[in-house]
C-alpha cells in the first residue's frame, strides 16, 4: 500500500498510530469519560464530529496563512477555530437534538482542550495532506478515538465488578489497563509494511 493513499492514511490513524494508544493524544477524556460505556460512545462521536469540522477548517486556514506568509499565527488561529467549532456543535446540538445535548452535558465544552483535536490539525499540516487526505486522516483519527475509548469503557465496567486490593483502586489500575490495551495495539504496527 502506498503511504499517501487514502485507505492507508485512514488505517494509519485508526489502528497503527492510534491517537490515544500510540500517540498519547486525548488521554484526559480517555481516562476521565470512560467510566460508562454509553457516555464513552457519545463522547467519542462528539469528538469525531468536532475533529472533522476543525480538520476541514484548519486545512483552509492553513492555505490562507501560507498565502499571506503569517505561519507564526497558526497555533492561535487553530485553537480559536477549534473553540468556535465546539461552540457551533454545542449550539446546533442544542437546537436539533436536545436529548443528546443533555446526555453529553459538561463533556461538550471540554472537547476544546482535547489535545487529539489540535494534534490532528497540526499533524495534517506537518504532513502536508491535501483536502481528501485530511478528511481521511480525521475520519481515521476519530474512529480510532471512538474505538479506544469504547474498549476502555468496556474494560472498566468489568473492572468495577472485580475484587481489587484498596491500594490499586482508581486511576492506577485504569492506567495499567490502558497499558495492556496499548500493548495489544502495538500488534498492528507492522500492518503497513
Amino acid at each position: 500500500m502506498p503511504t499517501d493513499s487514502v485507505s492507508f492514511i485512514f488505517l494509519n490513524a485508526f489502528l497503527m498510530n492510534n491517537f490515544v494508544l500510540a500517540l498519547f493524544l486525548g488521554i484526559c477524556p480517555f481516562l476521565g469519560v470512560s467510566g460508562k460505556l454509553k457516555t464513552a460512545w457519545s463522547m467519542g462521536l462528539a469528538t469525531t464530529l468536532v475533529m472533522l469540522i476543525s480538520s476541514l477548517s484548519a486545512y483552509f486556514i492553513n492555505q490562507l496563512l501560507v498565502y499571506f506568509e503569517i505561519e507564526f499565527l497558526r497555533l492561535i488561529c487553530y485553537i480559536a477555530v477549534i473553540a468556535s467549532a465546539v461552540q457551533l456543535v454545542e449550539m446546533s446540538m442544542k437546537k436539533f437534538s436536545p436529548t443528546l445535548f443533555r446526555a453529553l452535558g459538561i463533556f461538550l465544552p471540554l472537547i476544546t482542550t482535547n489535545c487529539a483535536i489540535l494534534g490532528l490539525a497540526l499533524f495534517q499540516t506537518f504532513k502536508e495532506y491535501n483536502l481528501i487526505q485530511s478528511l481521511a486522516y480525521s475520519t481515521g483519527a476519530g474512529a480510532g478515538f471512538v474505538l479506544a475509548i469504547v474498549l476502555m469503557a468496556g474494560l472498566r465496567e468489568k473492572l468495577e465488578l472485580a475484587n481489587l486490593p484498596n491500594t490499586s483502586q482508581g486511576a492506577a489500575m485504569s492506567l495499567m489497563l490502558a497499558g495492556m490495551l496499548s500493548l495489544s495495539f502495538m500488534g498492528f504496527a507492522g500492518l503497513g509494511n
Partner: protein
Amino acid sequence: MPIKEDHSITADTFLDGVWKDNPVFVMLLGMCPVLAVTNSVVNALAMGIATTFVLICSSVLISLLRKLIPKEVRIATYIVIIATFVTITDYVIQAISLELYNALGAFIQLIVVNCMILGRAEAYASKNKPLKTMINGLGMGLGFTIALLCLGSVRELLGNGSLLGFSIFGAQFQPWVVMILPPGGFFVLGSWLLLFNWIEERKKNNTATSKVSHAGAAASKGAS
C-alpha cells in the same frame, strides 16, 4: 458573593504544587505530554521547563489583567494568551536545539491544550495577585517537572539501560524495549500511582492503629 482575596503568601503557596496538589500524581492533569515525551530524561526535562515557562508567564499576565477580562469571554482570552507564549517557546526551542525540537515534535505546540495551565488560569490566576500567582505557578511547574523526571528516568533506565545518555548497566544489559514504547508510559505512570497509593494507605493504617491502641489504653485505664 465576591470572594475575598487572600494576599498572604506562605510556604504552602509554593509547596502545594510540588507535593500535596502535584498536577500529575494527585490531580491527573496534563497527562498527554507526561506520557508522550518521557522516553528519555533529556526530553522530560526540556518539556518540564517549557511547560513551567508557559505556566508562569501566562498566569502572571492573566493575573495582571484579571480585572479587565470580561467574564463571558475569559476562557477564549486565556487560551489566546497561553497560545502566544507557547508560540514564543516553540520558536525559542527551535533556535536553541533543532534536535530537541524534532524529538519533542508537536508536543511543544500542544502545551496550549495542557489542562493544567488552563486550570491554573481559571482556578488561581484569575483570583490572585501576580506575585502570589507566580510563586504558585513556580511550585506547580516544579511539581510537573519532577513528575516528568520520575517517569523519564525509570523509562530510560529500563528501556535503554542509560541515564541522561550515559550507560549505567554496561554492555551486557538487555534493554527492556517496551518501556520506551507507548505501553511503557502507561505502565510506569500506573506503577508510580500504585506506589503513592501504597504509601498513603500505610500512613492511614498507622494512624488508625495508633488511635485504636490509644483508645484501648484509655479504656483499660477507665476500667481499672
